[in-house]
């Protein structure tokens, strides 16, 4: 279990993480979602005691990180930035981490095997691909067989096979009763792995909810109907006990009914339809809406730069 309480990090004037309070519970995968620059990595570094919080507190199983006896046996982490000496072999990289926490050497072989790096264990890390580097990072996180696992953007740079492997790994770790905390800037990725969701934007907590709840609340499905005989269609639907809501552009939106049923109804009453389409607001859209106000660097869409008319420069000259 990871508990954050009023966790805040300020770099001079800029507030990277603002008053975060939430708990990451065991037995499930908790997704940590936010746009790039939202403060996810900073939060994770503070959990590991790498960055000092400006205010607030974070505890691992009720204890401060630097009070943990052999911390790798409590919490294993894969951080975003690669942190391996390029001249050191994968084996020695893991061995020095293991030794510092009193983890037996045979465990190094086990985790190398688990991530599929046994064949290159004695090779220097500088020859590793992004995917191999990521696997080595995961091997390091698994080293102490910890009850808590933390992954910062684990699928970045992985091929489809690697992505599938990570997802399966995280789910199986959670199924073993471990606490799994994984960050991502992709809602779609979270939807596939996480059961619980913590969303932040500009360092602030925006949502702390179960994935099922988030989906139920945010992914509304409805049917879009457009007809030249709008009044007639509204009557027909009303008689059938179906409520239709007019949307701005003259189309109707129907909640809670299948498109088939509406189509059949319209056919029976001989109403002409120009459109009949089931709609589903994607989770990605819901996430974008949620974080829209908090995204720090907007791409300036919608306000195109004024186009200089041909000859303007000549006239000015």
């Amino acid at each position: 279990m990871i508990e954050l309480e009023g966790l805040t990090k300020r770099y001079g004037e800029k507030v990277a993480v603002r008053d975060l309070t939430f708990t990451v519970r065991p037995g499930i995968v908790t997704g940590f979602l936010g746009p790039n620059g939202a403060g996810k990595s900073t939060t994770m570094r503070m959990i590991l005691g790498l960055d000092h919080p400006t205010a607030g507190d974070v505890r691992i199983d009720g204890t401060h990180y630097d009070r943990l006896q052999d911390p790798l046996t409590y919490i294993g982490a894969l951080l975003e930035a690669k942190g391996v000496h390029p001249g050191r072999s994968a084996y020695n990289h893991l061995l020095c981490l293991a030794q510092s926490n009193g983890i037996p050497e045979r465990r190094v072989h086990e985790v190398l095997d688990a991530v599929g790096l046994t064949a290159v264990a004695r090779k220097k890390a500088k020859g590793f691909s992004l995917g191999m580097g990521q696997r080595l990072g995961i091997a390091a996180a698994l080293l102490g067989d910890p009850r808590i696992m933390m992954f910062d953007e684990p699928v970045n740079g992985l091929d489809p096979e690697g992505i599938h492997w990570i997802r399966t790994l995280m789910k199986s770790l959670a199924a073993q009763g471990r606490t799994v905390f994984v960050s991502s800037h992709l809602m779609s990725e979270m939807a596939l792995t996480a059961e619980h969701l913590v969303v932040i934007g500009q360092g602030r907590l925006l949502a702390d909810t179960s994935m099922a709840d988030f989906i139920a609340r945010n992914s509304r499905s409805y049917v879009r109907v457009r007809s030249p005989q709008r009044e007639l269609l509204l009557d027909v639907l009303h008689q059938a006990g179906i409520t239709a809501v007019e949307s701005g552009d003259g189309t109707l939106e129907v909640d809670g009914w299948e498109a088939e049923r509406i189509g059949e109804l319209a056919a029976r009453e001989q109403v002409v339809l120009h459109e009949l389409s089931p709609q589903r607001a994607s989770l990605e859209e819901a996430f974008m809406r949620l974080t829209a106000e908090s995204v720090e660097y907007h791409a300036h869409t919608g306000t195109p730069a004024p186009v200089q008319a041909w000859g303007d420069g000549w006239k000015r000259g």
Partner: protein
Amino acid sequence: MAAAQVVRSEWTKIRSVASTMWTLSLAVVVTIALGMLISALSRNEFDGMSTRDRLSFDPTFISFAGMGLGQLAMIVFGVLVVSNEYSTGMIRASLAAVPRRGTFLLSKLAVATALALAVSMATSFAAFFLGQAMLGEHKASIGDDGVLRAVLGGGLYMTLIALFSMGVAAMLRSPMLSLGILMPFFFLISNILGNVDATKKVGQFLPDQAGSKIMQVVTPLDDDTPYGPWGGLGIMVLWVIAAVVGGYVLLKRRDAQ
């Protein structure tokens, strides 16, 4: 967390990178070879020297003439041992594994310093004996007054240079910045300050100028240094303590970037 575990871990780190081997071998080879060369040249020049120069002829100190250059490799060793952690990003994994930063830094410095001490002592003795062999009839003997102190001191001097570099690198973090400051400082600036009359009074309190006094057996005639061999080494130790404490305080306070 037992400090012994962290020491073992740091030993694995230091023995598993190539830079340890090549910096230390370079220090050994340069110090010994240059010492032998200058010893051989001095033997040939002895006959042409003035009486005054002959009186301050110090065969022990001459055989350590390679140390001025050899110490640069020791500086690189000390800097890389610490700053590698930062330049590779390994520091985050290291501090996540060993969150008690005092234990982390002291274990790292203890392992690297012990290794530097073993290599430096061997180098100092080898430089002395091989240098004396080159000096022929002008040679000093290890049993002569003050000679053993000078040879042991040579080993201590090189070790302290390495430890000083580790402390500076712990403060500066960047290998380029650390080397960019330490190399010209020890190779040029310190020598200039120590040899120009106006700055000599200050220059002789710099770590290398003060520390190298321990390798002198024969005091030059016009020597007015206000400290003896052990006093000089003591001054150097103070510099080293300042660098290491500075490195520790900054490591403790800063975020691990």
